[in-house]
């Protein structure tokens, strides 16, 4: 399960819910490769919502 957050000056951030890790959109990052594979399976990330956390 992933969430994404986009901002003009920041770009798109990818948040892995299982361990609260922030993943850079770098093709050489193996976590990002797993995220792309997850998308290819038809999954869709949710919007990251700070209101859901403290």
């Amino acid at each position, binding site marked *: 399960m992933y969430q994404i*957050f986009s901002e003009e000056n*920041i770009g798109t*951030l990818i948040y*892995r819910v299982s*361990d*609260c*890790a*922030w*993943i*850079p959109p*770098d093709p*050489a*990052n*193996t*976590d*990002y*490769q797993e995220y792309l594979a997850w998308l290819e399976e038809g999954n869709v990330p949710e919007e990251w919502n*700070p209101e859901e*956390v*403290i």
Partner: protein
Amino acid sequence: MAVSSTTGGLRTGVCLSTDRPQNPYNGQVVYETDTNRTLVWDNSAWVVVADPALVSFSGTGATVTADAMTVAGENVTPYTGRRNLLYNGAMQVWQRATSGTTTGADNYKTMDRWRNRTGSIGQSMTVSRQSAGLTGFQYCARIQRPSGGTDTGRLNLIQSLETSDVVRFAGQTVTLSFYARKGANFSGASNNLLTYLITGTGTDQYWLNIASGGNPLINGTTWTLTSSWQRFTASVFVPSTEESMFLDFSYDPTGTAGADDYYEITGIQLELGDKATPFEHRSYGEELALCQRYYEKSYDMGKNPSPTNDPNGSINVWPHTTTAYGIHIYAPFSVRKRTTPTVTMYDTATGTAGYFMETGFGLRSGQVIFIGETGFTLRNSVVLAGTGYINAHFIASAEL
């Protein structure tokens, strides 16, 4: 035919080793046709200055034909470095934890640069740091199936190498060496430890991508373990086209695990050449820096992410605003990473992932932005109370 001695000028002659000049002059040079050696008279004895039995020269370069090279009588062959192209081969660095259990997963849990993988869903394997009890080695890794376990899936210990390391092997013979022994209840079939060295093409590949269609240079070679340390070696040729590589140690457990269903391993070395030389020891600081290219934490070394009430070494700032997204804190890495890493932050009070600590208030939501090879920026995503410091620890992973 003996050469006549003379008292002037440099003259070189030929002779037999049994029939050298009877009255040589200082500095006289002779070539022995029966030994192919060249000698010079030092005014008291004949000194060998060239001996093709020890060193030969050809159109492709010099070859030392003896098994060892000596300087001033000392064998220097085992001391010429950098020879070991693996990371953490002596199991010195354990940033994540010195013991950990992986269940039904493929991940990094304990020692640096070595991935754990279980073959069955729900199956567990424990990797822990142990005193080696082997001269020259402080630690070994124990790979264990927990007592009572009945899953018999394969248990893997894997190290992947990035392309910039692998290209050094291409088109050459390499030699793998390691020390291993088994526990009293080791259940590996026929007491065997299996080894795979698999190469492939493509830059910085994940090991499963290499395994699929890769080139198995060492393909399940079995080593029979005993309760005593043994050193095992294997040499293989790496095709010149190879760009990616992983090394895999594994065993296939059988039956129900006893209390000591494990093997231990250390001194793992992969080097150029067709002979295993003595293990190349590196200092702890050097090995740690090499490993931090792939993983780093802000916690002190003996603290596994993520302890409670541990602000030491954390990112710390007293903000001058409470605005959401208004506070940006840059955190540099100790070592530049292989690529932009995945970053997780932890609050310093409870060790909860995904949060930082605002002292006097509690956990706060934040984000990790602008992740680069040399650092990242932490920022708040909610309005702060303005009650105190911001504290956060982090881990950063750029593993293969």
